[in-house]
């Protein structure tokens, strides 16, 4: 396997010499040990840091150096950003903070009330900031995008992405591309029609929009029966990735609506449950790959699109790897969307593998019914949305999986604005607990190298490091480290709160730190001096 070519030494040196974050800095983010500048750490969404001071031999000695208690209830799913001695953290329900990296002391606190009537399927989490220049960018739950002064937390501008009264909401961490802030949207469970947007970072003016459900006259609209496209969903609630050399933005899309009842929307329902590759300058679709045509199990394809160069069948490929909620691992050619690899990584009963055309080979009898249909995996996957990690050190791709089955029920349901548009519900199987695992997968083949079992469905994202470590957390409140080569557990701490976020790492004052959200707090760890 080869890793993508990196920027020149000149570019890296130039970027690190400046305090301001610009496109050059962001392209060199992988080499900046003292910062964490974007959701996936680099544009390829690796979530890997080469820092190796904390390693497999000493990780058992790390301990907290400070803890920030937010005092705000809700789901903390944030990836903190770190820059110039400050940590920037978003929280649920439109809260955010700047914290002194040395002491954990709060420097400023931003908050904005969530308006009455703003609804979402799954709480009001937020997954992080983006940074450019002296500004931070985040979405607010009521489907707005806000720019803040990084030094004060004061609002520079705020724009509405969509009308929350129609069921739109937002939780995604934005992605800076050139001079634009690129964001997705949520709301498919309320019958919204969703999109990916780009906004001018300076003014907040919208530069382009890509509708993930094409309208009349647009290619793909014929894959929706009648007017079903109007409430077709295909949300974009997890951050995409970006290949500057190809000038393509990659973004995963979610389920079509209504989730479990496919009868009103006969057809493949493009571009739901797909990976779309968009021209960074115009937002035009360059290619797409649909993982689950005409999905009736809510198997979003929003999980990280990770950019890794692969060797498949002896041929070098610019790859895009992705662990899909439908139970399969995929590798695509990111230049054109060509299907390369599709392998089940958990129990799958609805498909007998993936065909050479990339479409699942369906096993009949797995459509939800009024009486219920038992299908594996369950509604949450497989791998859902939690941040994944690719380590160039081990050459392995790490992601988590919920393992188990559910009974899917469907029922006809008319669209009503503001009402949950789900098409029925799912049941757990009596006596069969849903469990989980963390997997290390060989990117070029989809072979599972090791699997670390979890007693509950996974709750946190992952971080791999140059110290040969993989950090993760659990629903029961453990933050822990595995040996990235073997999956052997090396260290743990019961934090007292559910770990729902991926960890980050950075160097500050010459020492490596690891930080994660847990419960409603931020924990920061390092080795003893």
């Amino acid at each position, binding site marked *: 396997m080869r890793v993508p070519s990196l920027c020149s030494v000149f570019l890296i040196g130039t970027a690190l010499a400046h305090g301001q974050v610009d496109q050059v800095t962001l392209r060199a983010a992988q080499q900046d040990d003292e910062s964490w500048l974007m959701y996936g750490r680099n544009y390829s969404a690796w979530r890997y840091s080469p820092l190796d001071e904390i390693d497999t031999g000493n990780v058992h000695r790390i301990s907290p150096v400070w803890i920030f208690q937010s005092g705000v209830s809700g789901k903390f799913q944030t990836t903190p950003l770190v820059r110039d001695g400050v940590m920037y953290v978003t929280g649920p329900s439109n809260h955010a903070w700047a914290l002194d990296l040395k002491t954990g002391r709060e420097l400023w606190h931003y908050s904005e009330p969530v308006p009455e009537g703003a609804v979402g399927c799954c709480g009001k989490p937020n997954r992080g900031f983006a940074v450019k220049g002296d500004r931070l960018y985040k979405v607010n739950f009521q489907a707005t995008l806000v720019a803040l002064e990084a030094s004060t937390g004061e609002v520079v501008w705020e724009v509405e992405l969509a009308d929350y009264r129609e069921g739109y909401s937002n939780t995604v961490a934005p992605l800076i591309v050139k001079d634009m802030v690129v964001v997705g949207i949520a709301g498919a469970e309320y019958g919204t029609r969703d999109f990916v947007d780009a906004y001018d970072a300076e003014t907040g003016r919208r530069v382009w929009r890509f509708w993930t459900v094409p309208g009349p006259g647009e290619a793909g609209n014929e894959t929706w029966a009648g007017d079903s496209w109007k409430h077709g969903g295909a949300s974009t609630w997890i951050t995409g990735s970006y290949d500057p050399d190809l000038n393509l933005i990659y973004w995963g899309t979610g389920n079509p609506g209504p989730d479990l009842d496919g009868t009103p929307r006969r057809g493949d329902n493009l571009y739901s449950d797909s990976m779309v590759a968009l021209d960074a300058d115009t937002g035009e679709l360059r290619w797409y790959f649909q993982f689950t045509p005409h999905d009736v199990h809510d198997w979003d394809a929003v999980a990280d699109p990770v950019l890794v160069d692969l060797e498949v069948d002896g041929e070098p490929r610019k790859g895009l790897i992705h662990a899909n909620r439908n139970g399969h691992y995929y590798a695509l050619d990111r230049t054109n969307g060509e299907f390369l690899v599709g392998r089940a990584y958990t129990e799958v009963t609805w498909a007998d593998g993936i065909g050479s055309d990339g479409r699942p080979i369906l096993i009949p009898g797995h459509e939800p019914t009024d009486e*219920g249909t038992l299908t594996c995996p369950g509604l949450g996957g497989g791998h859902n949305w939690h941040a994944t990690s690719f380590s160039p050190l081990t050459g392995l791709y790490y992601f988590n999986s919920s393992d188990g089955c559910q009974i899917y*029920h469907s*029922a*006809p*349901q*008319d669209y*009503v604005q*503001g*009402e*949950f548009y*789900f*098409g*029925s*519900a799912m*049941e757990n199987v*009596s*006596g*069969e*607990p849903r469990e989980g695992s963390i997997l290390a997968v060989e990117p070029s083949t989809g072979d599972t190298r090791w699997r670390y*079992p*979890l*007693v*509950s469905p996974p709750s946190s994202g992952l971080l791999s490091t140059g110290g040969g470590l993989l950090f993760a957390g*659990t629903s*029961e409140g*453990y933050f*822990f480290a595995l040996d990235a080569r073997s999956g052997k*557990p090396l260290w*743990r701490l*019961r934090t007292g709160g559910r770990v729902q976020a991926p960890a980050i790492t950075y160097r500050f004052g010459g020492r490596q730190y690891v930080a994660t959200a847990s419960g409603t707090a931020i924990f920061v760890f390092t080795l003893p001096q």
Partner: protein
Amino acid sequence: MRWGGLLLALGGALLSAQDVASNPFRGDAKAADLGKASFRLRCSACHGIRADGGRGPALNRGEFAAGDTDLDIYRVIAEGVPGTEMSGYAARNSEESIWRIVTFLRTLEASPDDTIDGNASQGEDIFWNQAGCGGCHRVGSRGGRFGPALTRIGRARSTEHLRASLLDPDQDLPPGYYAVEIVTRDGQTIRGIGVGFDDFSAQVRDAAGQLHSFFREEVRSMSREFTSLMPDGYGDSLTDEQQRDLLAYLQSLHGEEQ
């Protein structure tokens, strides 16, 4: 929240229910379809996907414990039932959404009353003596602590669910009553109720009430089974009449002093 705020909030909830004294969707088939979808998402985990009961009472009998008018049902959904696992949904659902659930429940054909034709007094005797239920289960201040307390069980569970729990205890384990087995390094086996079980540790309460706590690396093995530790075979050891008497006793337990 300060108490003043809490009282205001409660007052607001009651006022809200009074303000919407009649069901705006009564007889509206589309509203019932929407209500069915909401019911399945929010209510079916306890009341069953067909509203025929489970951990919560059956709602397809045309009779409701807290009153049979649409407003009575609305109030229960909005405000919950104190002393049970039924919490209020007013904060998470619009008034319209709750009325649609009420409208859906009204479309269900009334199924026969499942009140057990048994002698509760004789069932009480069976509970404490012949069947030995009181060795593990508590009613009020009397009985054991190994199994779930049954003080309010007649209010919290449908009769069908109680019957299933008696004859097939594995069918629906109460939360927190799965079995954990620890084998220590010296070969001792400890089996009991799993107070906690995670990726790195387990806490087990044995039949004598003793709590044991281990990290995974301290023991030879630790495993969790989603099976009940309640003895099975009551279907054989009790006659049909005794089963009916016992169920009638359980059905009578509503939290009052016995």
